[in-house]
């Protein structure tokens, strides 16, 4: 296993007085891709929000690149090299181009220019409508824009919440392919997903059930477990 880039341990969190996470923890190595599987309402989104700092953890610790980041604000975490793609993913009232600029807010101008060219060639649909408002895009187009925006930050770890939800099969392949390409440049990934096609990207898998980590291991190990296989790959 590679050196640890990011780790979370014993995370408890919730909304109001309702506790959702009960001591969940996970870690991502440098250059590693981790997929977080889990049924609806297990708390995946909640966990990711805690990891990026959008929600406070009631207890537990977080560290990134060896530094503790538990109480750090989101913007500080982003500066350190974390990046998050929410379920919405874009600024609907800004153009695609502006979205990418905001995504790359902490990156130097020259680097950003190069990266944006890369992103536009990876997402030709976006390149064709640079000045369209992200809010006028279809669900799938928006996701593409959101991914591009998150990548524009040039993060070391990209955290994504169900990037494939609502994407057409072609786009799912494209997204996986694009993420694969960025992974090979050393990007670490932490992806909450339902779509098992993403397991192609995964070095390791965590499952989250009722706010607790259930399974942790490689994709191969997941396949070997009958019960898990049934739960996450379905019968058909």
């Amino acid at each position, binding site marked *: 296993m590679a050196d640890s880039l990011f780790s979370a341990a014993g995370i408890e969190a919730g909304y109001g007085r*309702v506790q959702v996470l009960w001591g969940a923890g996970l870690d991502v190595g440098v250059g590693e891709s981790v997929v977080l*599987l*889990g*049924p*609806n*309402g297990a708390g995946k*989104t909640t966990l990711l929000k805690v990891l990026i700092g959008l929600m406070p953890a009631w207890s537990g610790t977080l560290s990134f690149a060896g530094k503790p980041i538990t109480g750090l604000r989101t913007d500080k975490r982003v500066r350190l090299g974390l990046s998050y793609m929410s*379920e919405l993913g874009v600024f609907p009232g800004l153009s695609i181009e502006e979205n990418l600029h905001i995504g790359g807010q902490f990156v130097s101008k020259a680097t950003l220019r190069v990266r944006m060219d890369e992103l536009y060639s990876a997402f030709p*649909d976006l390149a064709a409508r640079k000045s369209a408002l992200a809010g*006028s*895009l*279809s*669900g*799938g*187009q928006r*996701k*593409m824009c959101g991914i591009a925006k998150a990548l524009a930050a040039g993060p070391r770890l990209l955290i994504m919440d*169900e990037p494939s*939800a*609502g*994407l*057409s*099969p*072609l*786009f*799912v*392949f*494209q997204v996986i392919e694009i993420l694969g390409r960025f992974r090979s440049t050393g990007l670490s990934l932490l992806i909450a997903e*339902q779509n*098992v*096609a993403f397991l192609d990207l995964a070095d390791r898998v965590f499952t989250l059930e009722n706010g607790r980590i259930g399974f942790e291991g490689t994709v191969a190990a997941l396949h070997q477990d009958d019960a898990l296989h*049934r*739960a*996450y*790959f*379905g*019968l*058909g």
Partner: protein
Amino acid sequence: MSPDAKLLHVEKLEKRFGGFRALDGVSFDLLPGEVLGLVGPNGSGKTTCINVISGLYGGDGGQVVFEGARIDGTAMHKLARLGINRTFQSPKPFLSLTVRENVEISARYGHAGGAAIDLDGLLASLELDAHAHRAAEDLNSAQQKTLDLARALATAPRLLLVDELAAGLNPAELDRMAIRLRTLADRGMAMLVVEHLMGFIDKVTDRVVVLNAGREIFGGTLAQATQDPDVIRVFLGGSHGG
């Protein structure tokens, strides 16, 4: 196909946003109890199609005929009472009302005729009964989508428009949802199902229409579609996935 047998007849539907043609002459028919899959790449106009049929947007050309009468231009709440209902791609429940109140409202105001709906039974069949007295804002997004469905079903529609209900469900849940929709169709409810997961489409639909850039590029069974080179090129991308 005799004209009166058709439940829904969509002809040369057009919708423009500014200069952009989101729908560019889409036509299809739907029989009672038939499930039609509406698929296509992102941005091809599927949601727009549902938006126009359900009255959220007025069309810019073409017509929509439901049970022999033109319905384009009819207000949404009237369409609901006529027997057309829908779910939303991003769920839109009444957040501060309870789950039960959500469905009560549509049963009370949107009921499209026929026998009264057993709301508790409906909630139970959708696995929402445990949350009946919780506010809808406490549900997660998949549960909210299911609530959208419950609300639509509470009006006893004859035509149900389903927009990406399955997105975000895990495989086990997907299977259960597919069975549910199939059961409804078998009882005579016609459906237009928009979905990207081909496995789900395969289980639920009788037929598919593939849209691209606001135009139909294919009509037929899913099996045929997966062989069609255009469909593969713009939509499926090599493999038929899901």
